[in-house]
């Protein structure tokens, strides 16, 4: 496949070199956007990078005195679709911190500045938590309302959804908890009839119509204003956090459009969730808020710390699980996670959860629609069905990843990708038409999960809880296992149909050009499978109580099997199978249940599903999407298995033209410009001379371009035949020659070098641990 745009760092081809000095290059993209800044900062200037730069922290506070004292605007920033230089950013931050610390002793103002600098991180986390929580509240309330808009409207205030419309009414009955005169379905509104074939068809038609309208609005807004707002966002955020730059991906238009269209996409009944996009929304908030603080605005590495915390806040508001959010950020999303970020992420996640709680989108101060309230015990023998659920989860995960990647690849390469609008509308139409008849797919997926997690008690009247009750032996809440009635049988086959439908439609839905997440659909699949298995085991235990396996612990009249628990374990297994989350998944589920008693079943299922899924296919869904898109991402969890040396992997290869180098003196401006225009490398090594080829340093193409342009404008006498010097002292000029241009301050004097005999595993490790963009290979210097 032609990956013109990116070259992946972990897969440079094999060659060997002829010249003494060779370079392994991770080139940036050839796509060069003409817009080079990020969100323009409020004060209007692009980041003034440090013009004087001493690599490796030799003497941080000494600034070199030469022609160009002032930092040139633009030097030190990065082009779009390039990776950042972690080492440079980190050393810059150290320099800045050292300077502030040393200056703080001088005056009170400087002291205040240093205190302010220390606290700016915490202030940022506070603002991040507040904004993430508010946006999540907005999304939750609006999605709740718009989902019900497909079915009807509330006459006592159009902003109420079905549940809130009937909140104060006295006409709800035990069997029909949502009936009240203020809520009118569309058929009732138009024809004043609520039963009958015609009303059903009219309701059906209005449902499909609303669904199509919502998805049409969503995809046209995405296409018109912010094309980066589609998809889940987590694969791209993973890549960004590992050092890649995608300008505009975390911008304010993307934020606004993603928030608005996420609500529309969820309300249109498509089989997608909002957790992944909420992480993207939170990261956008974090990125935008970074512009308020100089410390984070100018430093890409520090900004990524804030983005890690933002991802944690995003998951925290999605699930109401702050600890789970931090662990998700640590495990799935972040690349470098220093310990300091741990505490700050936790703070941001807590603030976000607290803000959401005070907005109270679901009433009762709940953060998530589905939560588990029962605490009934489970028996060790039930581990067998739990492990079965784990195997199912692993199988489903592997199937989903394979099918989804195949579908996305088809979308990428064939004509299917040329009609995004039509694709979204078709999928919505199919989903709406197939989902309406089955009551379990007609309602929103979160409500379905909520019902499946629920343990049946005497107070429930849903079809799933329609058991044959023996009134003489009931004792309050602790109901024994009972025989299933017709309601449960109907529910079971409806749920099986829903399971097949959801499995197939989610494959097609994830990755469309609307914001889409896959946590909720995976959990729904697992919950349905788990509940079906749970009811099966429960009925088995009821009818065959004399079997050996049930004899010890399931006496008649006891409540041994809780199908709701099976649903929960199934949901965890399927989610783990798809995303390959381990710790974070268990912690999220455990925070959802509020107790430690179900940790062992959850862990058993999660581990089993991960093992089964890993045996079939190595990657989780996010890594698979990263590989499909060709982002330059060095997977931190993989091991390098080939025994090769650095010499075998580097570029240029044996038959290639020799390495493009710049000499430290003797090149003219026009020579350098010719080199830049002819090649696509993003940086050049600088050597002493063409004969000796000893390494002096490394210079980036972008810095070269900006410095030359700047010099042409600002300095007198720089023409195309001016000489360029990278040395400390300019050699004496012959008379009548144009002025020379000294560019030592953009030269990196300490590039990372390895010898050509270094094994590749060490090279890969160096890249991974230090976050390098390129590494030079020397042979005897």
């Amino acid at each position, binding site marked *: 496949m032609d990956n013109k*745009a990116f070259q992946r760092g972990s897969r440079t081809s094999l060659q060997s070199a002829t010249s003494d000095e060779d370079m392994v290059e991770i080139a940036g993209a*050839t*796509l*060069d*956007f*003409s*817009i*080079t800044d990020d*969100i*323009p900062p409020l004060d209007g*200037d692009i980041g003034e990078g440090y013009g004087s730069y001493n690599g490796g922290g030799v003497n941080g506070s000494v600034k070199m005195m030469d022609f160009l004292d002032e930092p040139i*605007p633009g030097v030190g*920033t990065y082009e779009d679709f390039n990776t950042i230089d972690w080492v440079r950013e980190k050393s810059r931050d150290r320099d800045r911190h050292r300077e502030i610390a040393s200056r703080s002793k001088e005056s009170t103002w400087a002291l205040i500045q240093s205190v302010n600098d220390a606290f700016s991180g915490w202030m940022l986390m506070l603002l991040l938590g*507040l904004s993430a929580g508010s946006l999540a*509240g*907005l999304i939750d*309330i*609006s999605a709740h*309302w718009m989902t019900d808009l497909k079915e009807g409207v509330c006459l006592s205030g159009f*902003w*109420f959804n079905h549940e*809130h419309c009937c909140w*104060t*009414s006295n006409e*709800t*009955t*035990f069997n029909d*908890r949502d009936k009240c005169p203020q809520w009118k379905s569309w058929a009732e509104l138009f024809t004043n009839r609520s039963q009958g074939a015609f009303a059903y068809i009219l309701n059906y038609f209005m449902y499909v119509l609303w669904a199509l309208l919502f998805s049409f609005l969503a995809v046209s*807004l995405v296409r*018109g*204003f912010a*094309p*980066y707002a*589609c*998809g889940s966002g987590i694969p*791209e955020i993973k890549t960004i956090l590992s050092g890649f730059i995608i300008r*505009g991906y975390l911008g*304010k*238009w993307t934020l*606004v459009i993603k928030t608005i269209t996420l609500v529309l996409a969820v309300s249109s009944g498509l089989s997608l969730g909002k957790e992944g996009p909420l992480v993207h929304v939170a990261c956008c908030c974090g990125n*935008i808020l970074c512009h308020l603080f100089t410390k984070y605005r100018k430093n890409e590495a520090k900004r990524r710390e804030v983005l890690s915390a933002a991802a944690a806040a995003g998951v925290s508001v999605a699930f109401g699980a702050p600890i789970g959010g931090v662990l998700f950020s640590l495990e799935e999303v972040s690349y470098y996670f220093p310990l300091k970020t741990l505490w700050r992420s936790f703070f941001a996640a807590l603030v976000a959860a607290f*803000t959401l709680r*005070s*907005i*109270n989108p679901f*009433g009762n101060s709940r953060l998530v629609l589905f939560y588990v309230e029962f605490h009934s015990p489970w028996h060790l023998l039930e581990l067998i069905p739990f492990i079965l659920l784990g195997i199912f989860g692993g199988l489903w995960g592997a199937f989903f990843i394979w099918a989804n990647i195949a579908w996305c690849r088809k979308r*990428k390469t064939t004509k299917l990708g040329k009609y*995004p609008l039509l694709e979204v509308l078709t999928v919505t139409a199919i989903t709406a038409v197939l989902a309406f008849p089955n009551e379990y797919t007609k309602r929103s997926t979160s409500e379905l999960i909520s019902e499946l997690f629920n343990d049946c008690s*005497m*107070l429930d009247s849903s079809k799933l809880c329609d058991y044959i009750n023996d*009134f003489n032996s009931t004792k309050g809440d602790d109901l024994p296992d009972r025989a299933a009635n017709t309601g449960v049988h109907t529910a079971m086959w409806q749920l099986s149909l829903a399971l097949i439908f959801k499995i197939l439609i989610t494959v097609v839905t994830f990755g469309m*050009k609307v914001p889409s997440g896959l946590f909720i659909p995976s959990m729904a699949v697992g919950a349905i499978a788990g509940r079906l298995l749970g009811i099966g085991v429960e009925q088995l235990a009821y009818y065959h109580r004399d079997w050996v396996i049930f004899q010890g612990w399931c006496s008649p009249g006891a409540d041994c099997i809780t199908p709701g628990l099976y649903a929960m374990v199934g949901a965890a297994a399927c989610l783990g199978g798809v995303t390959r989350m381990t710790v974070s998944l268990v912690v999220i589920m455990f925070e959802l249940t509020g107790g430690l008693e179900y940790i062992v079943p959850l862990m058993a299922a999660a581990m089993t599903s991960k093992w089964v899924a890993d045996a079939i296919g190595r990657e989780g869904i996010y890594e698979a999407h990263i590989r*499909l*898109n060709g982002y330059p991402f060095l997977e931190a969890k993989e091991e390098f298995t080939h025994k090769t040396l650095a010499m075998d992997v580097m570029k240029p290869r044996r038959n290639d033209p020799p390495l493009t180098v710049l000499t430290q003196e003797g090149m003219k401006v026009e020579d350098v410009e010719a080199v830049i*225009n002819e090649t*696509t490398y993003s940086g050049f090594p600088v050597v002493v001379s063409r004969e000796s080829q000893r390494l002096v340093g490394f210079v980036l193409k972008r810095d070269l*371009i*900006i410095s030359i*342009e*700047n010099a042409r404008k600002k300095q007198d006498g720089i023409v195309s035949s001016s000489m360029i010097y990278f040395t400390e002292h300019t050699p004496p000029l012959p008379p009548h020659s144009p002025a020379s241009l000294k560019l030592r301050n953009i030269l990196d004097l300490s590039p990372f070098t390895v010898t050509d005999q270094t094994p590749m595993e060490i090279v890969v490790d160096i890249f991974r641990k230090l976050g390098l963009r390129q590494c030079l290979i020397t042979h005897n210097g």
Partner: protein
Amino acid sequence: LWFDALGLLVFFQLVFVLSFSTLLLNVSDAKNSEDIRCKCICPPYREHAGHIYNKNVSQKDCDCLHVVEPMPVPGRDVEAYCLRCECKYEERSSATIKVTIIIYLSILGLLLIYMVYLTLLEPFVKRRLFGHSQLIQNDDEVGDHQPFANAHEVLAQARSRANVLNKVEYAQQRWKRQVQEQRKSVFDHHVVLS
């Protein structure tokens, strides 16, 4: 620049208005009496069917005896009946819901109007006000073969323009170009986010 600063300001105003107003609404004591309720669910008991009772009472009065009226069972069965009932105190903020939905719908409406304006009306308005020369030029993507032009862009942004209308125009053009580039890479070339 001005355009973006305005957008940023609007965004912040929105976020803070939403969060602080909801926090204030929850802190204030004057609660709308319609926003609290005590909900008691009583399961079927002997020959009586199950029933749900709602009443606006405060949290300390939220139990079976205060809420369930009229009591369907005679006096000696009341205790047995009430033992099966489950009463929960619930609170909501209808003002929050109203404000949120109205904010959401207004943002959605504004975006739709802007989109309609951009696609349909803007060419006419532009032609009338500025003449043909100011219409957007659709460049092909400026690739790597013009690296110095990109440096030009970086340095050019440091300059300022006097005319306010020109500034808005410039910012809007730049934003449009950004969206076009994004659209190309996402929808046409399938480079990102496939």
